[in-house]
C-alpha cells in the first residue's frame, strides 16, 4: 500500500489527480501540467515534497563521517548553507543524489530521494563510523514554493529576513506561525524556498502559503510539472537518469565530485574511471524530427543501438522536444547527431548545451 504525506487530504480536497510515485500516493497535477509549469516559470507554484526523506548526522564526528560518504566538499560549506552532491558506492555507482544542510558541524541534515529513504539510511548508518545517524523522514513534511514571486509570497507570512537567505542557504524561522527550516533551495531552476516543517502543521502551512500567493497567481503543482521543470534545467532524476549502476562522472555530475578533497567512498573507482575514460556520457538533446523521446527509448546510430534515453518530454517553455540520454563519448559533443527510435521509427536528434532553459 502506497504511503501518504500529511497533505494527502488537502490534495484530494483541492481536486488534485493522485498517482503512485516511488511508493507514495502523490498529486500528479492540479490545474494541468502546462498551466502549473507556466505558473512556476512566471509567478509561483507550490509543491508537496514531503515524500522526500531526511537523514540526520549528529555528534562530534558528524561532519567527518558524512564527508567520507559524500562526493562534494563539505569543508567549503558554512553553518546555514546547503550543498548538492552524491553518495557513492565503492564501485562509484550512485546510491543517491542529495542535498546536505549544515545546521552545525555536529548537526547535518541530508535530504534524500523518496524512493531511497530506507536504502540511504542503511547505507549511511552502515558506513558512518562514530556518528549518530538517524532516519528522521517521518518527522518532517516539506513544501517547495518556487517561482520568481516566491519571496514576495513568503515574506507576507514570516518575519525571517528572506533577502538574507541567499541561494543554497537556509535559516530557522516561523512561517504562518509554524516553525520551519526555510531553505533557499529547489529543483525547478527558479528562485524559491523549501520549507521543512513538522508533519502535523503541514496542512496549515500549505493553506497559508496558498492564501498568501493567491494575489500573485500562485498555483498548487503536482509531480508532472516538477518533472518538466527539472528536465528543462537538465537536473537529473534518480532512478531515471542515474542509479546504483551509474557513476556521477557518467551522469555529468563531475562538478559535484571533488577528487582532491581527500578520501571518500567511491573515490578510487572514480579516479580510475577518469583515467581510463568514460564509456558513456549523459547528454542533453533536442529532437529535430517530430515526436517525443521518452525514458527507455533506444538511441541508434547506423541502425545499431548505442545508447538510451533516460528522460524526455516536450519542453513547455521552449516548445521543443528535449531529453537526456546516455551515448558513447564520440556522440557526446555539442552538435553531434543521432537518432532516437520512437515506436520503431528513427527520429533525428542533436546534442545541445544544457540547461535547455535559462532563467530570464
Amino acid at each position, binding site marked *: 500500500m502506497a504511503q501518504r504525506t500529511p497533505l494527502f487530504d488537502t490534495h484530494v480536497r483541492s481536486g488534485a*489527480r493522485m498517482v503512485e510515485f516511488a511508493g507514495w500516493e502523490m498529486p*500528479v*497535477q492540479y490545474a*494541468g*501540467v*502546462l498551466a502549473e509549469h507556466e505558473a512556476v516559470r512566471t509567478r509561483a507554484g507550490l509543491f508537496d515534497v514531503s515524500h522526500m526523506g531526511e537523514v540526520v548526522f549528529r555528534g562530534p564526528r558528524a561532519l567527518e563521517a558524512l564527508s567520507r560518504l559524500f562526493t562534494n566538499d563539505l569543508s567549503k560549506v558554512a553553518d546555514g548553507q546547503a550543498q548538492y552532491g552524491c553518495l557513492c558506492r565503492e564501485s562509484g555507482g550512485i546510491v543517491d543524489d542529495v542535498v546536505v544542510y549544515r545546521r552545525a558541524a555536529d548537526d547535518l541534515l541530508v535530504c534524500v530521494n523518496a524512493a531511497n529513504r530506507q536504502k540511504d539510511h542503511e547505507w549511511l548508518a552502515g558506513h558512518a563510523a562514530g556518528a549518530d545517524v538517524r532516519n528522521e523522514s517521518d518527522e518532517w513534511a516539506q513544501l517547495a514554493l518556487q517561482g520568481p514571486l516566491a519571496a514576495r509570497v513568503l515574506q507576507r507570512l514570516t518575519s525571517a529576513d528572506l533577502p538574507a537567505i541567499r541561494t543554497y542557504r537556509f535559516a530557522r524561522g516561523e512561517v504562518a506561525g509554524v516553525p520551519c527550516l526555510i531553505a533557499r533551495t529547489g529543483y525547478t531552476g527558479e528562485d524559491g524556498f523549501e520549507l521543512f516543517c513538522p508533519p502535523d502543521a503541514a496542512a496549515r502551512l500549505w493553506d497559508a502559503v496558498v492564501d498568501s500567493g493567491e494575489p500573485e497567481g500562485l498555483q498548487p503543482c503536482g509531480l*508532472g510539472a516538477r518533472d*518538466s521543470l527539472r528536465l528543462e534545467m537538465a537536473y537529473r532524476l534518480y532512478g531515471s537518469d542515474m542509479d546504483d549502476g551509474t557513476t556521477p562522472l557518467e551522469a555529468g555530475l563531475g562538478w559535484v565530485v571533488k577528487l582532491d578533497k581527500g578520501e571518500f567512498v567511491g573515490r578510487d573507482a572514480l579516479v580510475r574511471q577518469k583515467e581510463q575514460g568514460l564509456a558513456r556520457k549523459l547528454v542533453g538533446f533536442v529532437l529535430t524530427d*517530430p*515526436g*517525443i523521446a*521518452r525514458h527507455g527509448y533506444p538511441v541508434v546510430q547506423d541502425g545499431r543501438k548505442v545508447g538510451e534515453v533516460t528522460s524526455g*518530454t*516536450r519542453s*513547455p517553455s521552449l516548445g521543443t*522536444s528535449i531529453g537526456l540520454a546516455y551515448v558513447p563519448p564520440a556522440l557526446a559533443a555539442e552538435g553531434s547527431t543521432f537518432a532516437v527510435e520512437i*515506436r520503431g521509427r528513427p527520429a533525428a536528434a542533436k546534442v545541445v548545451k544544457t540547461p535547455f532553459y535559462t532563467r530570464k
Partner: protein
Amino acid sequence: MDFPEDLKYTREHEWARQKGSRIVIGITDFAQDQLGDVVFVELPEIGDTVKKGESFGVVESTKAVSELFAPISGKVVEVNDPLADAPETINSDPYEEGWMIAVEPSDPKEVEALMDVRAYRAFVEEQ
C-alpha cells in the same frame, strides 16, 4: 464531462460521427481529461487504411503515450492536419475542432455496433 447524444463510442474512448458517407473520429472528453495536456499527436495519412480495434495513431500527453484505436475499418479520406501544430485543441474541443481523421467505412454496419451515448456514459461511470 460532455457526452454528445449523436455520437457512437468505443471502450477505448474514441467517438465516431456519421457525416454523409464518412465517419469522423476523435477521442472523448473523458479521454482527454484522463490524458491531461496533449502535446503531440501522430495520425495516419490520407489513403491509409485503418482496421477496427487496431491502432491508427498515437496521442501523447505531458504524462504518457496512448494509442488511438480505430472504431471501424476503412480508408482514411481526411486528416485534421492543424492538430500537428495545435494538439491542445484535443483538450479544449475534443468533439469538434479536435477531430482526428475521417474514414470511408468498408463495412457501414460496424458503426451500428458501437456504443450509444447511454451505454458509453454508463461505461465511463464504472471506470
